[in-house]
C-alpha cells in the first residue's frame, strides 16, 4: 500500500478546492460546526475518559455523538482534526469504506468562540458490537471489547458469546490489520492499540476501532497502557509507526491465540498455520525484532493473514529471545458455600479400595487365556 498524503480539509475542501463528497455515513452538517449548530445534546454516555470530558449523543442527529475535549487541548489540535476528517477523501474507495465501517472516524470539528477545537462529532458504534454477557444470575447487554478475543474459546463460551474458533479469530485479526494498514498508509500514528480501544462482533467477525480522533501524523506522545509498553520505545519518547507495529503485532498475537501472557508469543512461534504460512514469522519479527525500524508493516502482516508470503525488501531482523513462560497455575477450585458460623463438617473417609481385587482379575484373565491356547492346540 503506498502512502497517501494528508490533505488539509479545514475549509471543507478536499484537495484542489473541490467540495468534499457528502459523508457516506450520513453526516448532514459541514465538517466544522459550532456547539450551537449541533442542537440539543443528550445525557453523556461517558465522562472523564482519556482526553474527553464527556461524550454526548446528538438529539437531532441520531447515531452521532459529540465528543467534548478537556479544555487543555493544544490550539493546533483544530488543524490536526481537520486533517483527520478530510483524510478518507484521499483513500481508494475500498479503503475509505473499510475505514468508515470499522472506526468511529470523526465527521466534524466542533468549535466555540475562542476555542477552535472543543471536540469532534463521531458516529456511534453500530449495534452489532453489543451483546448480552451472561455469568451466573446476571446478564447485561454491552459493547464487547476485543479483550474477549484474547481469551480462550472456553472463557468466551462462559459468558454466553459465540465461540470464534480459529476462523473467527483470523477474520477479526484481518479486519484489525486492514485498519492499521490504512492508518499507516495515511502516515498516521494511533499509539492506543489495546484491548479497550476496539470492539468485536462475534457474529459478524468484525472489529470496530474507537478513539481514532487522537491519531496524529508521524508521531505523538506515547499513550501508556499497562502491558502494552513497546520495549524499544523508551518512556518519555514519542510513539511512531514502529511503536504501532509492535502494539498491533501484540494485539493480533493475543487475539489469534486467545492467550494473554508470554504463552501468546510461544504459541505463535510453535504454530505454523497451514493456510497462513507467513503469519508466524511476521508476528515474531514485529514483536521481537531488535531493530524497531525493521519491524514488518501492517500491510505485510495483512498479506500474511490473507495467506500470502512474508514479502520483504530488507533482510530479516535479528530477534530477541522469546519471553520466559510463567509457571502453570493451579485452577481455582470452588469450595462449598462459606457459612461463617457453621462448623466444618468432618469429611467422610472413603473406604480403602481392595488392593487384592486387581490381582485376582489379572489371574482370572490369565487362566482364561491359557485355556483358550490349550483348546486351540
Amino acid at each position, binding site marked *: 500500500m503506498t502512502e497517501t498524503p494528508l490533505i488539509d480539509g479545514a475549509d471543507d475542501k478536499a484537495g484542489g478546492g473541490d467540495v468534499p463528497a457528502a459523508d457516506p455515513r450520513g453526516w448532514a452538517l459541514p465538517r466544522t460546526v459550532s456547539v450551537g449548530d449541533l442542537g440539543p445534546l443528550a445525557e453523556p454516555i461517558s465522562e472523564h475518559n482519556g482526553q474527553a470530558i464527556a461524550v454526548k449523543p446528538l438529539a437531532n442527529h441520531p447515531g452521532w455523538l459529540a465528543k467534548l475535549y478537556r479544555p487543555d487541548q493544544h490550539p493546533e489540535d483544530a488543524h490536526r482534526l481537520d486533517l483527520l476528517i478530510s483524510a478518507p477523501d484521499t483513500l481508494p474507495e475500498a479503503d475509505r469504506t473499510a475505514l468508515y465501517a470499522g472506526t468511529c472516524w470523526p465527521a466534524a470539528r466542533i468549535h466555540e468562540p475562542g476555542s477552535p477545537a472543543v471536540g469532534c462529532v463521531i458516529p456511534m458504534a453500530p449495534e452489532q458490537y453489543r451483546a448480552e*454477557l451472561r*455469568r*451466573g*444470575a*446476571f446478564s*447485561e447487554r454491552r459493547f464487547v*471489547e476485543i*479483550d*474477549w478475543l*484474547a*481469551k480462550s474459546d472456553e*472463557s468466551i463460551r*462462559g*459468558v454466553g458469546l459465540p465461540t470464534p474458533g480459529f476462523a473467527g479469530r483470523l477474520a477479526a485479526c484481518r479486519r484489525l490489520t486492514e485498519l492499521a494498514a490504512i492508518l499507516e498508509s495515511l502516515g498516521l500514528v494511533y499509539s492506543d492499540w489495546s*484491548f*479497550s480501544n476496539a470492539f468485536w462482533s462475534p457474529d459478524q467477525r468484525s472489529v470496530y476501532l474507537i478513539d481514532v480522533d487522537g491519531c496524529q501524523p508521524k508521531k505523538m506522545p506515547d499513550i*501508556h*497502557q*499497562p*502491558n502494552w509498553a513497546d520495549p524499544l520505545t523508551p518512556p518519555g519518547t514519542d510513539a511512531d509507526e514502529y511503536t504501532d507495529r509492535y502494539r498491533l503485532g501484540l494485539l493480533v498475537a493475543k487475539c489469534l491465540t486467545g492467550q*494473554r*501472557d*508470554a504463552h501468546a508469543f510461544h504459541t505463535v512461534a510453535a504454530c505454523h498455520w497451514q493456510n497462513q504460512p507467513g503469519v508466524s514469522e511476521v508476528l515474531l519479527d514485529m514483536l521481537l525484532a531488535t531493530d524497531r525500524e525493521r519491524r514488518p508493516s501492517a500491510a505485510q502482516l495483512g498479506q500474511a493473514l490473507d495467506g500470502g508470503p512474508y514479502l520483504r525488501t530488507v533482510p530479516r531482523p535479528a530477534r530477541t529471545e522469546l519471553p*520466559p513462560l*510463567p*509457571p502453570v*497455575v493451579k*485452577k*481455582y477450585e*470452588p*469450595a*462449598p*458455600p*462459606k*457459612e*461463617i*458460623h*457453621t462448623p466444618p463438617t468432618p469429611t467422610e473417609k472413603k473406604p480403602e479400595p481392595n488392593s487384592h481385587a486387581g490381582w485376582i482379575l489379572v489371574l482370572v484373565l490369565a487362566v482364561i487365556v491359557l485355556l483358550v491356547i490349550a483348546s486351540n492346540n
Partner: protein
Amino acid sequence: MPLCLPTYVVIDASSSMKEHEAVLNATLARLHYNLATNPRVSEFARVCVVAFSTDVHVVIPMSDMEQVPAMPEVICGGRTEYGKTFDRVRECIQQDVSNLKAQHLEVLRPAIFFLTDGGPTDAHWQDPFRKLVDRDWSRHPHVIAYGFGAAKRDVLEKVATKALFIADGTDTESALSGAITGLLNTLIASSAAGTMNIPTNVNGFTYVPVTQEFVD
C-alpha cells in the same frame, strides 16, 4: 511482565449485618459478575474476599475472578473482631504476593478495601493493624475504608491509609451497593492506569482525605 494488583475485599459479616445479608450477597455476586466479565480488570486485579465477624473466613482465596464460577454466600452473625482480621489478611498477603511473583507478575502494593458497619468489638486490634501497615514490611498494603451504619469514623480514620469514604446518612443497603461500585470503579481505573487510582466520587459517601497516606 504483566502488572498485578493484589486486592483484598474485607467485609464485615457481624450480627449487625444479618438483616442486610441478602443484599450483601447480591452485591458480592454483582461484584463477581463485573470482574468476571471484564477480562483486563480481572487479569490486573487478583481478588481475595475475606469476611470477618467473631472469626475470619477467606471466602475466595486470591484468584482471577474470571476463573471463579460463582461467589460463595456469606452468612452473617457474631462480633466485629478487627484484630484477627488484620492478622489473617497479613498472612494472606505474605503468601499471595509470593505466589503472584512466582507467576512472573509484576506485583503492585496490595490494596485492602475494608467495608464495615460498626466499630471493633476487640480491644487490642491496633497492634495487629500496626503490624499490617508497618512501612518496614515491604508488602504493607494500602487500606481504603468504607464506613456505613454504625461505623466509627474516628476508628476508620486510623484504619484508612489511602482513602476513606463515610456514608452520608444513606441506608446500609444503598451504602453497600455504593461501596462496591466505588471499589469496582477503583479497580477499573487502576487497571487502565497501571497504578492505584481511586475515583473519589462514590454515590452515597463522603470522601475524607487521608492524612496518613503512604508514598509508593
